[in-house]
């Protein structure tokens, strides 16, 4: 995940088709993988990634080098992912997944054999229903390995908010674990 050179971005902004093609080519993996952690399904992630690339074409001109390119790019992908989610009307399905997330997490920790993406999807669905912004924070910090500060920049919130969200998620996962551990 190397940041594209300023020169490349500027050429693309100036309308250089080749430069833009290269930019998308270089950044596609970052976009796709983030989308994958968001959606949990390859086909959906590819849809979102494509949408994000289209949006990149529309909005690249507005990037002003006031933040790191990736900060800006993540915002764009998150927006696309949210759009997609709304369009798909996935809320119901997520809630259903949420119920089984507990089981999935137990299985994963116990055996580590459940298909990773399925597991991720159900856990993230569960995280998402904890509240607004939790899923984003987890994906950026735990998934993309960004610092709390970087994630906060992307999400336009205070650093402490990100820290709190991550902490909250960890706390609840633990709680959950404890419950399921003591349960049947």
């Amino acid at each position, binding site marked *: 995940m190397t940041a594209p050179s300023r*020169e490349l971005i*500027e*050429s693309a902004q*100036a*309308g*250089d*088709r*080749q430069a*833009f*093609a290269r930019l*998308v*080519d270089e950044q*596609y993996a970052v976009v*796709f*993988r983030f989308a*994958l*952690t968001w959606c949990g399904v*390859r086909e959906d992630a*590819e*849809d979102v*990634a*494509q*949408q994000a*690339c*289209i949006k*990149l*074409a*529309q*909005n690249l*001109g*507005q990037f*002003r080098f006031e933040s790191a390119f990736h900060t*800006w790019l993540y*915002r764009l992908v*998150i*927006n696309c992912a*949210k759009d997609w989610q709304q*369009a798909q009307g996935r809320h119901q399905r997520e809630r259903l997944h949420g119920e089984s997330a507990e089981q999935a*997490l137990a299985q*994963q*920790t116990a055996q*580590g054999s459940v298909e*990773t*993406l399925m*597991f*991720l999807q159900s*856990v993230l669905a569960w995280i998402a229903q904890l509240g607004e912004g939790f899923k984003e924070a*987890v994906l950026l910090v*735990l*998934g*993309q390995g960004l610092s709390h500060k970087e994630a906060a920049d992307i*999400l*336009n919130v205070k650093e402490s908010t990100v820290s709190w969200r991550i902490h909250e998620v*960890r706390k609840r*996962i*633990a709680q*959950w*674990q*404890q419950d399921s*551990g003591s349960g049947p």
Partner: protein
Amino acid sequence: MTDKQNAADAALTRALADAQDTPVDAGAKARAIDAALMEFDRVQKKNTESHQGFWQRWRPTGTLTTLGHSIMELFQRKWLYSGIAAASVAVLTVMVAQQMQHTVVAPELDGAQVPQLNGERRLAKKEALELAESEADYTPTEEVIVTGARLALAKEKGKGKEKPASPVAQQLPAASVVASDSFIEIPSQPQGRDDFEHVDENPVKRVVDSPVSTFSIDVDTASYSFVRRQLNQGVLPQKDAVRVEELVNYFDYDYPLPSTKDTPFSTNVIVSDSPWTAGNKLMHIGIKGYQLSAAQKPKTNLVFLLDVSGSMNAPDKLPLVKQSMELLLSQLQPDDTVAIAVYAGAAGTVLEPTAAKDKQKILTALNQLSAGGSTAGAQGIKLAYQLAAANFEQGAVNRVILATDGDFNVGITNREELKGFVERERNKGIYLSVLGFGQGNYHDHLMQTLAQNGNGVAAYIDTLSEAQKVLVTEATRNLFPIAQDVKIQVEFNPNTVQEYRLIGYETRALAREDFNNDKVDAGDIGAGHSVTAIYEFTPLGGKALIDSPRYTPKNAVTEVEAGPDQGNLLNSEYAFVKLRYKLPGAAESRLLEQPVPPVNTINARTRVAAWVQRETDFATAVAGFAQLLKGGKYTGDWSYDDALALAQASKGADPYGYRTEFVQLVRKAKMAQGL
């Protein structure tokens, strides 16, 4: 509990990390890039268009402070919410995008943007997906071939800023883009004034009514390059810009070289089934000229006539012209000569005839050129011919190469006058080739006319790789004619064929009597050139488009009633093909004749050499595609997908990637059509 917490955390982190290692699907990536590029082109185009409108005043300028921005934001937000946004999608896009620049996470505005654009976007995606599905062996390497060549070439020249790209974008030095924190001023560029002649497609003809079809061959390729340029920008070309024969002849076909030196070219007539109309057949007439060895190449005296008027002041014009001329220079023998004349407000000689071995001198002269002023094209042409005449050598190739965007707005602007002038010079032995550049103000018709009357080639150069094709790869064929005034006359047999139509060659039609008249000018074939013409015909008994007349003369009735006589070879032939050509410089033409018996037919059941089926199929795919671009009057249900499949299957070795590029273009046309 701590252990468990760690375990749960670890599982989540591990799962997230695994997702980060997921390999990217190349096909999905390619689709995303394609879709993004399409959007990119659309945005670039829109920027230029909306720039001219009233709404540009609403854009904040670079002098605004942060406060100014936020006021502007509020202001725009108000406009958005009040519903005026619905008035224009284009304006809305710009404004929303503008608004988003400082508060990028703005879902509510995103939402506002979605309804208008979603339809289009989804469509694009759907198209892209369908396309990818329909073409199983699509790989992203194709894209690399198409675009990579240009990049590589541009780099090779070490002039990054001159590399060809969209005209709008390239006009801005990158620095100015960053400096102003606002909308960027784009110099106005003539748009949509490309001039094409409208010609009706050749109609279907009844063999009984007019059994003979006559035309001149055409070796121009300009139409293909123009079409490609349009499609690369995500729009379908205007129908008049598509000349079927030029698309077909853009590609080199692997017909056998002539077996003897007596005739300068081989003639191959192949009949295949029409893919778009069941029961119909296609008759391909393929001509291949012999190849000159280096030693056989005649001495060449070239005069570059370069347009340096103000309209050439675009990165895809004058800089590309210079690079193209440098490429051409590399193909010359040391004792060949080059002179350079330019024209703008006035015409002038930049370089007296200079031997090609004095390369540095020529390059220096080329590089000093810059664009400005109006265009006195006619004066320039006269000057160039004077230079050529001063350096004229009998037996050598004396040729003027005109590079222009076709905007002749000063001096003699009368086309007929120019045409007559070029014709007279041709008869003296000085030929003219025309290289077209740029877009927005391209006078295709004039370029065509000049090149046709000057025994030359009209090519349209949109990229450096196209310059490479025309001036390096195919330099011999474009410089050295081996047969001149090549005319084809086909007589169809009413005993076997009901109807026929010539696909393309509308601008090259000749009268029946012109065939034997050596005074009538026609197209030339260069060394190693291949030319293809395709007829579609309905055999007797097939579904005819034209009703038989109720009343026929008595003698004709008996003829039809007699029907095809199986025992008589003459009566089973489909057609009789005649060719006339002149050797370079000769006044008298020679005649070649060839019957087309049914045995020339190829289809799935016949066993023929691999090249026959492959080359025939590819030519068919290109001809079909071109007809689709022209509206598909005769192609029935045949679609871009069919063109794609047929071309994909018959790409062959494709050493220069031209056919692969064609496959790309078909895909782009399909996408553009969806929008």
